[in-house]
């Protein structure tokens, strides 16, 4: 039997490893669109960006893995009639079982200013190295658009490097899925360390140095208002290189001679935030377009049953960020999870199921776990905080530096979030196997003398 894994990041790697350790002795292909062997991505917004880790430290050990790699090879289509994956260069790889692990890509900015040099997204190692080069080359003002996990981490890292950082989001607080209470705690972390926050603030576009009388104008204070907005719009005509824009010639030195360089973020009220470098962190999109003609149901994740098997084809399974599958914590609604641990665990789970007949496959129902490191705070969460109707603070240390909160939906606890409190989080995590009522959890915590802030009671 030949198994083909499409996607050579964490989910694909763990799938391949699990196939071999479960005894799959047949052919095993792993296809990846990047040239690199699998590497871990969490350091990309933190240690690698800060220069504290090398690229090699991000590599997963996979020398001993017996697979046929097809790297630098994007999957272009799936021919289910012939049971073959079609690569961008036309190569066809036949499969008996297919594991889709194509993950997500960064959502890019397509509005005014999209063509400007100095705009970055962050998803792979090359993205991080490109951003790092600019930060090391003397960029002083960093604007981060999007205060989700990647944006907030990049802001923290850039601030840690001593740069001036502005963090912008249209939402009223960072880390939207964690709700306003914890989002405001996160906002305060950034304010305390000197990051400027512009929340509930939309972005109209980006203005290049050439768009308003050259670099001198770009370095001026914010507040260009309508004229700046008009400048941002004119700089984008057809996405053409801004060399066509009057005044852009002075941007002609350096690595990208034809592109004007970003000077400012134009906010929706027309005011500006000066920026030498912009990081666009607007979330991620699943890489499933290559499946569009396959007849498989996409939402846009690949829609699977509880066993990570496509609802349309028992020979196609899915793992990682691109997987939509029904989860008990969501009352059986399909969810997609874009976190490291989910990719690792689903890769292995999909592999085990791929080796089993359809009727003997086992559901994957682990409560999602994710974390975010910002400054000296480790934020950890289990369950589905983004589906919670409300977030309730249940524990807090007297110093206020450690806390645990729970996410409640329909009276049940479906998530827990901890700031610097991993040991406490473990208890909550066990409860999620059979979601208890909020009252049960609150009472248990109130009676637990190991809870943060005990014995004075719960910190609400």
């Amino acid at each position: 039997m030949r198994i083909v894994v499409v996607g050579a990041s964490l989910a694909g790697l763990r799938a391949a490893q699990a196939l071999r350790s479960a005894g799959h002795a047949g052919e095993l292909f792993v296809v990846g669109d990047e040239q690199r062997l699998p590497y871990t991505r969490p350091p990309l917004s933190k240690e690698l960006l800060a220069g504290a880790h090398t690229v090699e430290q991000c590599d997963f050990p996979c020398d001993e893995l017996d697979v046929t790699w097809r790297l630098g090879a994007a999957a272009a289509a799936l021919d289910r009639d012939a049971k073959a994956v079609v690569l961008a260069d036309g190569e066809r790889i036949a499969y008996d079982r297919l594991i889709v692990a194509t993950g997500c890509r960064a959502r890019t900015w397509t509005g005014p200013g999209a063509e400007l040099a100095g705009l970055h997204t962050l998803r792979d190692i090359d993205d991080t190295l490109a951003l790092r080069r600019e930060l090391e080359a003397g960029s002083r003002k960093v604007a981060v658009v999007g205060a989700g996990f990647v944006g907030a981490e990049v802001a923290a890292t850039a601030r840690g490097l001593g740069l001036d950082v502005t963090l912008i989001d249209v939402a009223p607080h960072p880390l939207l899925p964690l709700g306003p209470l914890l989002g405001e705690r996160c906002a305060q972390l950034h304010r305390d360390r000197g990051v400027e926050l512009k929340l509930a603030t939309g972005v109209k576009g980006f203005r290049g140095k050439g768009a308003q009388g050259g670099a001198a104008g770009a370095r001026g204070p914010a507040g260009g208002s309508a004229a700046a907005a008009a400048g941002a719009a004119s700089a984008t005509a057809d996405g053409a290189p801004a060399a066509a824009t009057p005044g852009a010639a002075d941007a002609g030195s350096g690595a990208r001679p034809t592109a004007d360089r970003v000077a400012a973020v134009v906010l929706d009220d027309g005011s500006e935030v000066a920026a030498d470098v912009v990081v666009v962190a607007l979330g991620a999109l699943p890489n499933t377009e290559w499946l569009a003609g396959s007849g498989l149901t996409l939402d846009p994740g690949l829609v699977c049953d509880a066993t990570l098997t496509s609802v349309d084809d028992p020979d196609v399974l899915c793992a990682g960020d691109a997987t939509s599958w029904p989860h008990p914590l969501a009352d059986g609604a399909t969810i997609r999870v874009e976190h490291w641990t989910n990719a690792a665990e689903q890769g292995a789970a999909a592999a085990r199921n791929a080796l089993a007949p359809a009727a003997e496959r086992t559901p994957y129902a682990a409560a999602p776990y994710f974390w975010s490191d910002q400054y000296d705070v480790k934020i950890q969460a289990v369950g589905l905080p983004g589906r919670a109707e409300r977030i309730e603070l249940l524990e807090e240390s007297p110093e206020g530096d450690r806390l645990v909160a729970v996410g409640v939906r329909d009276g049940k606890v479906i998530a827990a979030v901890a700031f610097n409190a991993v040991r406490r989080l473990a208890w909550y995590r066990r409860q999620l196997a059979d979601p208890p009522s909020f009252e049960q959890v609150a009472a248990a915590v109130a009676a637990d003398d190991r809870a943060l802030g005990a014995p004075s009671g719960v910190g609400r």
Partner: protein
Amino acid sequence: MKVHVDMNLCQAHGECVFAAPDVFELHDDDSLTWVEEVGEDRRAAVEQAAQVCPMMAIRLEG
């Protein structure tokens, strides 16, 4: 089988404790301790712990 944890890498995610609760233990100060020599019957759980460690801090020998 020997279990090694690189404490320079460990950031107390606690994933290993979930994968193999009888091998790894987190304490109230968020420090980690673990059983250094485990039997063959724990192999699957400890391998799982190594695979879900976000810091790749767990190494198995033998």
